C-alpha cells in the first residue's frame, strides 16, 4: 500500500468513539502537517489516548476517519509504514532483556530494523543496560526504551502518548531534549500530554481536547493572541476579598471581576487600576498584592477545559481556531 503523495502525516476527520452510552471521543478533526511538533493537550480522561489508539489502528472508530500519510490504519498495518510511537506507557516483555525485546520488535518490523538496534540504544542512552531484563527497568528507562523501539521503524511520524509522565525532573528534561532532537531531525511528532510546560516548550501547534472534543486547534501563538494582552489581567490579594469584590464591581472601568481561590481577578487598564487602588484604600480594604498576570498556556488550558469551555468574555478567538464541542 502506498501513501497519497503530499498527504499530511495525520489527517483525522469526524473521529468518534463510543463505548455504550459513553462517548470517549466526540468528533475530533485535526491535521498534523509535515515537520509539526503537535501537542495534543487535555486533562486526564479527555479522550487523548483513545484518539491515539484509533490513529494507530488499535481500536476501531465508531465514526470518522484516520489517515496517516493518506492511508487508513484500520485497513492494513502497512498504513503504519513510517509511523511509530506508543500509547500510555510503552510495554515490553519483562522476562527478556532490552536488546532481546528490540530484536523481537525489529524482527516484527523487518526492512532493516534489526540493523538499527544499536543506534537506537545509543540515541536513548541505554546501550550499557541493554543486556538487563526489562522487568528491572525503572519507568524512565522503559520510556526511553519505548522511544528506541519506535526509532527502529525509522519513522517519519512519531506518536507519543504522555512520554514524560511519571518521570523525575531529570528524566522529563532528558525526554524533552530527545523529542526536540527528533523534531530537529525533521520528524513529525504528535505528542499527547497533560503537562502544559512540556507542550509549550516542544510544540508549535496544539489541539486542546475536552470531554472527547477539540475546543482549540492551531498555533500556540494564535491561542495566546486570543486572550487580552498581558498586563490587562490582574490578580488582587486583599484583607477582605468580599468588600474588594464590591469595590471592583463599582464602575471603575473594570470588567470580568471574579472571586478566585483566595483572591480577586479582573481585567482593567492601568488608569482603572490606579483608581481602584485608591478606592480600595478609601473603603478600608488593605491590598497585599495587586499584580498584572501574564497569560500562560495553563491559563488558556484551564479556560478551555474547565467551566463552560470558553476563553472568557475578553477573548475573541479567530474564526476556526476555537472549536466548540459538538
Amino acid at each position: 500500500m502506498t501513501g497519497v503523495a503530499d498527504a499530511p502525516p495525520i489527517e483525522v476527520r469526524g473521529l468518534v468513539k463510543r463505548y455504550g452510552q459513553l462517548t470517549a471521543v466526540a468528533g475530533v478533526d485535526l491535521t498534523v502537517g509535515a515537520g509539526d511538533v503537535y501537542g495534543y493537550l487535555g486533562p486526564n480522561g479527555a479522550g487523548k489516548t483513545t484518539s491515539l489508539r484509533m490513529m494507530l489502528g488499535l481500536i476501531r472508530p465508531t465514526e470518522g476517519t484516520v489517515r496517516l500519510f493518506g492511508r487508513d490504519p484500520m485497513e492494513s498495518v502497512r498504513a503504519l509504514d513510517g509511523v511509530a510511537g506508543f500509547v500510555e506507557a510503552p510495554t515490553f516483555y519483562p522476562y527478556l532483556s532490552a536488546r532481546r525485546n528490540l530484536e523481537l520488535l525489529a524482527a516484527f518490523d523487518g526492512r532493516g530494523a534489526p540493523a538499527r538496534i544499536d543506534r537506537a540504544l545509543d540515541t536513548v542512552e541505554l546501550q550499557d543496560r541493554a543486556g538487563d531484563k526489562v522487568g528491572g527497568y525503572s519507568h524512565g528507562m522503559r520510556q526511553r526504551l519505548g522511544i528506541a523501539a519506535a526509532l527502529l521503524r525509522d519513522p517519519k511520524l512519531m506518536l507519543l502518548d504522555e512520554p514524560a509522565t511519571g518521570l523525575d525532573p531529570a528524566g522529563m528534561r532528558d525526554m524533552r531534549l530527545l523529542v526536540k532532537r527528533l523534531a530537529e531531525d525533521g520528524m513529525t511528532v504528535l505528542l499527547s500530554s497533560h503537562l502544559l510546560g512540556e507542550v509549550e516548550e516542544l510544540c508549535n501547534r496544539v489541539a486542546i481536547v475536552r470531554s472527547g472534543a477539540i475546543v482549540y486547534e492551531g498555533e500556540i501563538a494564535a491561542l495566546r493572541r486570543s486572550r487580552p494582552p498581558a498586563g490587562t489581567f490582574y490578580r488582587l490579594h486583599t484583607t477582605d476579598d468580599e468588600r474588594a469584590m464590591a469595590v471592583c464591581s463599582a464602575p471603575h472601568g473594570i470588567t470580568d471581576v471574579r472571586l478566585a481561590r483566595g483572591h480577586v481577578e479582573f481585567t482593567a487598564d492601568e488608569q482603572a487600576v490606579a483608581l481602584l487602588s485608591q478606592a480600595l484604600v478609601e473603603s478600608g480594604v488593605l491590598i497585599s498584592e495587586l499584580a498584572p498576570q501574564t497569560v500562560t498556556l495553563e491559563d488558556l488550558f484551564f479556560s478551555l477545559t474547565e467551566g463552560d469551555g470558553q476563553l472568557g468574555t475578553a477573548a475573541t478567538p479567530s474564526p476556526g481556531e476555537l472549536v466548540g464541542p459538538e
Partner: protein
Amino acid sequence: MSAAAATARRWGALPGVATVYRWELFKLRHQKRTYLGLGASILVPVLFVIAVHLRRSHEHGGGFAFSDYVDKSGLAIPLVILLFGAIWLFPLIAALVAGDIFASEDHNGTLKTVLTRSLERWQLFAGKTLAAGTYAITAILLCGTVGVVAGSIQSGFNPLQSLSGTIVSAPRATELVYFSLLIYLIPITAIVCIGLLLSTVTHNSAAAVVGTLMASLVFQLLGILPGLGSLQPYLLSTQFNAWQGLLRTPIDWTPIIRAIWICAIYGFTSLFCAFLVFLRRDVAGG
C-alpha cells in the same frame, strides 16, 4: 531480477507468520509456565514408575486398560498415563500456554506494542496458535517418551498384550504407543483451541487457563451423568480414548475417525471464533 527472486526478497524482508512463530517459541523458552507444563510432563511418568516400583507385589491391577501389564511391560506405562491424564493433567498442561498466550499480552500491555509493528493481526494470531500447538505436542510426546524410557527401566522393554488379548512385540508396541500419542493429540489440539478462544475472549490468563480446564471437566461430567448416554460419543472427553482403537486387533478405526471429525468441530469452531474476536477487537487496555 526475476519476479520469483523479487518476491522471495520481499518475503525475506517482511515479517510473517514464521517470524511470529519463531519468536513465540523463543518467548515460551523464557517463561516459567512453559517449564511448569513440560516439568509435569516429565515428572508424572517418573512418579508413576516410582509408584509402580514401590507397590507391594500382591497389589495387582486396578480394573482399567493395561493396569495389569504395568509390571510386565514398560510400554504399558505411557498408555496408562494417557488414560488418567485425560481427566485433568493433559488439559491443564495444554491450557497453561494456550490460555495464556493472548491473555498475558493483554495483561502486560504488549499486545499494543506488537500490533503497531509491521504485522497483520492474522499473522500474529497464526504464529501464536502454532506456538501453542507446538508446546502441547512437545508436552505430550515428552510425557510419552519419558513414560516409555522410565517404564522400560522399571518393567522391561517387553512385548505388550493388546486390548484384544493378542501379544504385540516390543518394537511394534513402541510404534503403537507413539501412534497412540499422535491420536491423543487430536483432542488435545481441540483443548488448545478452546484455550486460545478463552485467552482471546477473557483477556485474563488465569481465567482462560482455569476455564479451559473447567470446560474439559464439564465434558467429563456430561459423560457420566445418567440419561445423557447418547451424547457420550460426541463429547470431547470421549475422544481422549480414541487411541485405544489402535491397541485392538485388528485396529478399530471407528473411534479414531470419530475423534478426528468431532475434535475438528470443537477445535475449528473455537479457533474460528478466537480468530474473529482477535481480528476485530479493540486493543484498549494495557
